[in-house]
């Protein structure tokens, strides 16, 4: 009889983490999984920076008087918070980390179609990031993340050119990621992996990539024009020459509205995978969820001027865009209904990823519904440029996208690292995030509705708003704790966490049919798919359950 080892040691098989060591094996890698980790480190860094600016904003708003920073500085704070969070955290987050890691695995491929372009994407992101950090350290930018002309082109005294170029470069990174995903999903699927067998995570990333490809170039040219106007005096938006600042807004929002779908669609993909796994059920209405992702991508391009209702567009344009904005909510609602129907009569497990998914469902719904309030012209005139809008988009981007990101990180952490995170701490963190989030942002709905404008550092003429602001800042502190916890225990788990089996969740999907962590080329043999997606009935069948190793 062999000796039973009391404490099982992790089997040191060759995988993508230990295949090669050394800094250059990481900086020159073309392995999509390593690139995903490079992105993970980078976007976490920018999350801290964006969070730091958020902290300063909330500290300033503790008191009605503008006493922590000056007005100009405050303008820089919210501008850089927005730029960093949108372009250097949210847009890349799920696609560049989870997408890069999982897309090839989920379709049974060895890598993305263009591994070297994938690495180039990361380097472009880093170059843009370095430019942005340099910009912040040498004066910053105060135009808002929206760079509106003619302030950005003619009147701002801050580093608009550098910030614009930094975002341009990061945008190019985003375009190349989208290009890689589209070609990969079309060309590199394993035998038997038909479109209708793809995980909905893949459909979500495909839709996201369409938006990245078709929208980001318009942002690029718009920023180019701003830089050209500022640096070379080529006046396109200059009112003195007869230029139209509203044209800037049209071009800017043509990208920046679809951009919000870049930020939410991947999270929706994550949530779909989590809900299916932790309800032990195939997603209800697979085709509807798949096509609604594409519909969101397409419809998302039709609604941009709802950011411009009070900017000076024509009434007829405003009406058209308002109607279209109602239409774009439909595919998102379809998803919510399908997720809910999946939960119905499912076998619900309350692991941490599922807690994030539940949080997403509630918070995204609130965010989405308040978006409809804003799509109504009459309401928008009242609440635009107030904290109502701020609360709306934070519900979607933080309550939605960030919770999706965290849920996905937890769900796939065993696969990525080969370790299990501590479940108790993870559930606690999810709860803290949920409470902190609502405490931070729900008061902002009330503040906005009562008339507190956004981007104001001083509200001393409205001192009655202080109570809600203090609540919001308190919530932000709690939220910060909730975000720090996973960073701590994920790092802890890399050394001390229990080793993970191939499929600790007994989840469906090709990525769970290889080792944790996976080998460099993902599969020992190219998979041949003969089953439908979300085959949870098979996975949970008694005979099958015995063969599948349970979480270590």
């Amino acid at each position: 009889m062999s000796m039973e080892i009391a404490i099982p040691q992790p089997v040191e098989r060759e995988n993508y983490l230990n295949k090669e060591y050394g800094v250059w094996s990481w900086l020159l890698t073309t392995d999509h999984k390593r690139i995903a980790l490079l992105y993970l480190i980078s976007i976490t860094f920018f999350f801290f920076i964006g969070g730091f600016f958020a902290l300063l904003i909330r500290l300033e708003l503790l008191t009605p008087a503008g006493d922590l920073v000056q007005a100009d500085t405050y303008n820089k704070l919210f501008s850089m918070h927005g730029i960093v969070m949108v372009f250097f955290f949210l847009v890349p987050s799920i696609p560049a980390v989870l997408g890069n890691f999982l897309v090839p695995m989920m379709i049974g491929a060895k890598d993305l179609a263009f591994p070297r372009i994938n690495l180039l994407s990361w380097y472009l992101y880093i170059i843009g990031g370095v430019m942005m950090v340099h910009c912040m350290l040498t004066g910053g930018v105060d135009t808002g993340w929206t760079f509106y002309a003619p302030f950005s082109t003619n009147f701002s005294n801050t580093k608009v050119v550098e910030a614009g170029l930094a975002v341009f470069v990061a945008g190019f990174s985003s375009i190349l990621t989208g290009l890689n995903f589209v070609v990969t999903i079309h060309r590199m699927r394993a035998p038997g992996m038909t479109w209708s067998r793809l995980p909905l995570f893949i459909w979500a990333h495909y839709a996201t990539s369409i938006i990245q490809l078709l929208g980001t170039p318009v942002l690029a040219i718009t920023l180019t024009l701003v830089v050209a106007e500022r640096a070379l005096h080529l006046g396109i938006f200059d009112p003195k020459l007869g230029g139209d600042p509203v044209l800037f807004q049209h071009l800017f929002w043509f990208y920046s509205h679809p951009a919000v779908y870049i930020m939410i669609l991947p999270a929706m993909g994550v949530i779909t995978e989590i809900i299916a796994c932790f309800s032990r059920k195939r997603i209800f209405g697979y085709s509807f969820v798949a096509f609604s992702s594409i519909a969101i991508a397409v419809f998302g391009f039709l609604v941009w001027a709802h950011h411009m209702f009070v900017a000076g567009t024509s009434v007829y344009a405003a009406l058209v865009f308002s109607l279209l904005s109602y239409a774009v909510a439909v595919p998102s609602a379809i998803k919510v209904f399908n997720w809910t129907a999946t939960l119905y009569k499912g076998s619900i497990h309350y692991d941490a990823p599922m807690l994030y998914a539940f949080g997403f469902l509630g918070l995204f719904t609130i965010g989405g519904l308040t978006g409809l309030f804003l799509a109504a012209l009459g309401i928008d005139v009242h609440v635009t440029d107030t904290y109502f809008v701020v609360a709306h988009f934070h519900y979607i981007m933080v309550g939605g996208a960030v919770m999706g990101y965290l849920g996905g990180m937890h769900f796939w952490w065993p696969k990525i690292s080969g370790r299990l995170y501590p479940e108790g701490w993870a559930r606690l963190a999810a709860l803290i995030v949920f409470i902190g989030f609502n405490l931070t942002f729900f008061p902002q709905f009330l503040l906005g509705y009562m008339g507190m404008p956004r981007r104001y550092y001083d509200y001393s003429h409205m001192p009655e708003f202080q109570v809600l602001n203090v609540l919001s800042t308190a919530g932000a502190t709690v939220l910060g704790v909730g975000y720090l916890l996973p960073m701590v225990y994920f790092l802890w788990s890399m050394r001390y966490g229990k080793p993970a089996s191939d499929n600790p969740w007994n989840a469906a999907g090709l990525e769970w049919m290889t080792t944790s962590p996976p080998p460099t080329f993902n599969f020992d043999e190219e998979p041949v798919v003969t089953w439908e997606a979300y085959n949870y009935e098979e996975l949970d069948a008694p005979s099958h359950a015995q063969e599948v190793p349970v979480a270590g």
Partner: protein
Amino acid sequence: MSAHSTSSLHSSSSPLKTYFAVWIALLIGTGLTVYAATLDLGRFNAAVALGIATAKATLVALFFMHVYHASEKLTKLVVIAALFFLLLLLGLTMSDYATRPWS
């Protein structure tokens, strides 16, 4: 792409004939554009110029870029998608400018 090389191997001179024909057509189109610009067609000058340009662009895309003989629909779908979103950008933006009563 395999189907592409198959179609051009049917007769090695036929793609060449097409290419030279398209080339001549493009040059004629350019000349026509210039000539038409010197005529007074009122509001149709722009339409004619852009119409000829679109015809030229179509020839380049279909025959020089091999979209006509593309072995799968995906290539054509990418082209159509790009044009669709471009028209969306132009059209919906114009919907604002065309309906402003003050300018």
